[in-house]
């Protein structure tokens, strides 16, 4: 009977497990106590949050969904999504640093690496001692990532890499361990190659001046006859295209969680402000015009959250989740932009100055409709899954 009950429960998952609740609580408390007090300053000074990443690493939060044998947390994808949501609820720069490291940096090595590669790289990545990047986007290959021009030619047992990557997260910090890139290894052949940080010929260029995510590290990369050993090939030769699509599918779960978190954080701020701000002799939260905004935000956030959690659960169950992930990404990115805008609107003039977090949230939100697959790419993925041709 017990098993039967459990099976029914697992099909309709609206209750988090004890562990999931505790992880959510842990990260909520951490974000509130350790991130919130410094988020404005880090953003203003465009300073990478080393201290926070170190603390997150010590708590086991830099490799949440990976096996404990590699130093990971041994938790599920939903726990990981909950953690990213709670971080982004307070600050997106910290959120994306953890999400990009975990889903884009660490995952390909975890999923496609040999035992030797996993043993070599994963412990330092799961502990947060080192960060890892995923180098896919190029100046002329964004949404059309298959159009990559970076080449890797095998010469004397080494890959010789030439080309450039851009918009790469976590590539230029003091603790960046390296990058996994996609490169042309043949006429119609894309492969993934591991490039350690100290590789001669590999240059991490100056950081971008961004609209938001100011405390996160985003840079262009250049490869000028950069040489790495042949065994740095990640996964089978020629599988790079398939592998990065899979990586992006997973990445969309955490980016969706970032959208939910940012939207929720915007609502938290807007609600608190609306309750304390008086106009015409009473709190603005008592005006229907404000109530409608708050009610709509809360409703949309809950819907987007369920879609995001469902994607995580599908992945944990080993079921196809690419369509749902694209839907979640599309929904949450737009929602984050809209909720940030509404939150600023509710704050009035104060929302336009940096003393209030919603100002930062507004700048941080926009990338969520672009990064890790634009809305238009998500729509393409979704339409194709529907059979539209």
């Amino acid at each position, binding site marked *: 009977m017990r098993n039967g009950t459990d099976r029914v429960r697992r099909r309709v998952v609206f209750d988090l497990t*004890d*562990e999931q609740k*505790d*992880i959510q*609580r*842990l990260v909520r*408390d*951490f974000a509130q106590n350790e991130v919130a007090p410094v988020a404005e300053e880090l953003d203003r000074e465009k300073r990478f949050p080393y201290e926070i990443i170190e603390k997150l690493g*010590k*708590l*086991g*939060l830099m490799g*949440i969904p990976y096996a*404990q044998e590699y130093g990971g*947390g*041994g*938790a599920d994808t939903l726990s990981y999504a909950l953690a990213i949501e709670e971080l982004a609820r307070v600050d997106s720069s910290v959120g994306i640093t953890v999400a990009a490291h975990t889903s884009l940096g660490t995952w390909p090595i975890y999923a496609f690496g040999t035992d030797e590669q996993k043993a070599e790289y994963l412990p330092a990545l799961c502990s947060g001692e080192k960060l890892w990047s995923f180098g896919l986007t190029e100046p002329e290959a964004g949404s059309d990532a298959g159009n990559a021009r970076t080449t890797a030619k095998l010469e004397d047992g080494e890959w010789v890499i030439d080309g450039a990557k851009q918009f790469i997260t976590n590539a230029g910090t003091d603790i960046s361990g390296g990058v996994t890139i996609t490169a042309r290894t043949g006429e119609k052949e894309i492969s993934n190659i591991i490039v350690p940080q100290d590789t001669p010929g590999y240059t991490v260029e100056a950081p971008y001046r961004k609209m938001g995510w100011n405390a996160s590290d985003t840079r262009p990369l250049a490869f000028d006859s950069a040489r790495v050993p042949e065994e740095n090939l990640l996964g089978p030769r020629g599988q790079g295209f398939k592998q990065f699509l899979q990586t992006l599918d997973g990445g969309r779960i955490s980016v969706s969680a970032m959208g939910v978190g940012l939207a929720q954080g915007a609502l938290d701020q807007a609600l608190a402000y609306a309750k304390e701000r008086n106009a015409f002799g009473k709190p603005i939260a008592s005006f229907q015009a404000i109530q409608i905004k708050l009610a709509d935000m809360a409703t949309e956030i809950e819907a987007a959250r369920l879609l995001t959690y469902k994607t995580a659960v599908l992945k944990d169950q080993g079921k196809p989740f690419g369509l749902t992930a694209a839907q979640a990404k599309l929904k949450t990115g737009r929602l984050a932009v809209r909720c940030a805008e509404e939150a600023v609107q509710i704050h009035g003039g104060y929302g336009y100055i940096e003393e209030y977090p919603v100002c930062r949230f507004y700048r941080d939100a926009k990338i969520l409709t672009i990064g890790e697959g634009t809305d238009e790419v998500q729509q393409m993925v979704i339409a194709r899954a529907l059979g539209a041709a």
Partner: protein
Amino acid sequence: MKICVLVKEVPDAAVEKRMDSNSMRLDRSGEKNLNPFDTHAIEAAMQIKEGGAVDVEEVVAVTMGPESAVRALHKAVSLGADRSVHLTDDALADSDVSATGYALAQVLKSESPDLVLLGQQSDDGECYTIGAVVADHLEMPSLTQVIKIDTAADKLTCERQAEYGYDTVEVTLPAVISVGDAINEPRYPSLKAIMGAKKKQLDSKGTGDVEIDASKVGADGSRTRVLAINPPPAKQAGEIIEDEDTNETVEKIVAWLDERKLIA
């Protein structure tokens, strides 16, 4: 040394607390959490264990409560306790502070700890008294509001907060110490500890297992009866002194205190 830490499951701080006018008790429904004051007691135990001044064999979290209270124990072990004991029995429902203290003391007798630690208060009942009740039943010395503990083999030197300043008190072991929240900054549980919490030993005990006299616990065994509940009387509005010119402000404060003969 063996340390037992008393913990309690309470409504989460985010839940708005309200009295149930029918039962005349606190409505404890909704999201629950480990009593935040107890996390300071667990942290104090961990600091003694990790401090190295004495050899601590184990830290045991102890609670009394319904089935759901195991969550508080899971949290306690995720914060570092080695194992936990759950006293749970229908006969214990609706016990007052005195009956709860007696029941907990019976569990503690079966554990024979050298030191019992607990938080200064629970975040729901807020009685501040359970430590003293437990100590009385165990015939151990008891201290409250302790904010610093120096450990030696058979005694502790404690600093405790008082209205007039700080007391430094030496106490022989075994003892029951309730700690103030200023004693430390509790650590976060690590992800690994959260994932492993259910794997640590948890013993569930009923009243019969620890020789609890059923006539002394539960609603019937409790000596308090709630006759009525009333909101606290409204406080008088205070006087706000705006700090425009600091010298003037200081003068105003001094004058205010002087009027009330609060300055010698």
